[in-house]
């Protein structure tokens, strides 16, 4: 899941960076990008919790 989402974000940013992307599309792309960022923030939060648990188990 993580790899897929990062790949999508990469693609969105590449499109936003391109001079061929018009404004309407740019706004839409940015909106999509923000949705992915929110998903990934939740994912990283859960991962941090898992890692903390592992740290505790390994002590």
């Amino acid at each position, binding site marked *: 899941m993580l790899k897929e989402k*990062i790949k999508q974000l990469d693609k969105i940013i590449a499109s936003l960076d391109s001079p061929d992307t018009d404004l309407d599309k*740019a706004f839409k792309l*940015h909106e999509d990008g923000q949705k992915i960022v929110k998903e990934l923030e939740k994912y990283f939060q859960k991962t941090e919790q898992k890692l903390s648990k592992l740290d505790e188990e390994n002590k």
Partner: protein
Amino acid sequence: MAEIMSQNAVSVSQLNKYIKALLDNDILLSSIIVMGEISNVRHYKAGNQIYFTLKDENSQISCVLFGSTLSRLKFEPSDGLKIVAHGRVSVYEKRGQYSIQVFYMEPQGIGALATAFEQLKEKLDKEGLFAPERKTPLPQYPEHIAVIAAEHGAAIKDIVSIAKRRCPLTAVKLFPAVVQGALAPNSIVDQLQRVQAEKDIELVIVSRGGGSLEDLWAFNEEKVARAIAACCIPVVSAVGHEIDFTISDFVADLRAATPSAAAELVIPDLAGLITGYKQRMHNLIQQKYQTEARRFEYLKSKLGLLNPANILERGYSITKVDGKVLKSAELVRPGDEIETTLYNGKVLSVVK
């Protein structure tokens, strides 16, 4: 005069016989200990004898060693070697030559066993039997180990105990051997042959506990050393204590100071391995998380920078005509309707 001398003359044989009798009946000369340096060594394989000269700075005497004494010698008599010999002075009547018939001898100073050790070590070293290139690497996680040791000795008990503690999955099979005395060398060699005939054995420990140089001597015998060198399975030599070094140690694929040390070296520590793997996995996950998190932060900040709204906020605008973005003034004519998007809204205009 000549007639008187002839009447009193004895034959050569009679003279030599007389001298022999004198020497044979002399208490001192029938059991004497002499020291000197060996020279002019000659072997007579047919008669199983060695002849040599024993000398000092001023004098010399012939010596002979016969078969039975020869077989008891622990070292090789060689020119230049200083020895102490016990024997008797005798005459070879036929030649009228006297010599020492040696019953026993040993090198001066360091002793027979130590000399034999150094001689064999030098010999096998010259042949390349100790060369590092000959050493076979030990298997990392052996499942079947052979141990050549005394059946009821401390060595096998220690090895089995350590195996149970470190890795119960490793099977240890004892090949009992005589590890001291005259029967030991053949016993060890025979067991090495048996080990190699077994299908699953991956490694063999040749082992005995501590003892004197004499006690450990079997592991300095040439036939044992050659059997270890020729063994097609990796051999760990674990003889005696930390300070004991035997020829087996030099020729084996690995030397362990003691039988316990051998077990610690060859049997993996399962618990330690598992802990190590757990830690490694944990570290790898941490690294992966940090790499991905850094990449995400980078993309997030870049997305922020590329927000089209940021550009409009700085006072820029985007103008469209007929739904298409206007990039050049030449694309419009007076009277055309244009739509301009600003940061906070749109403006409709007509070109003049």
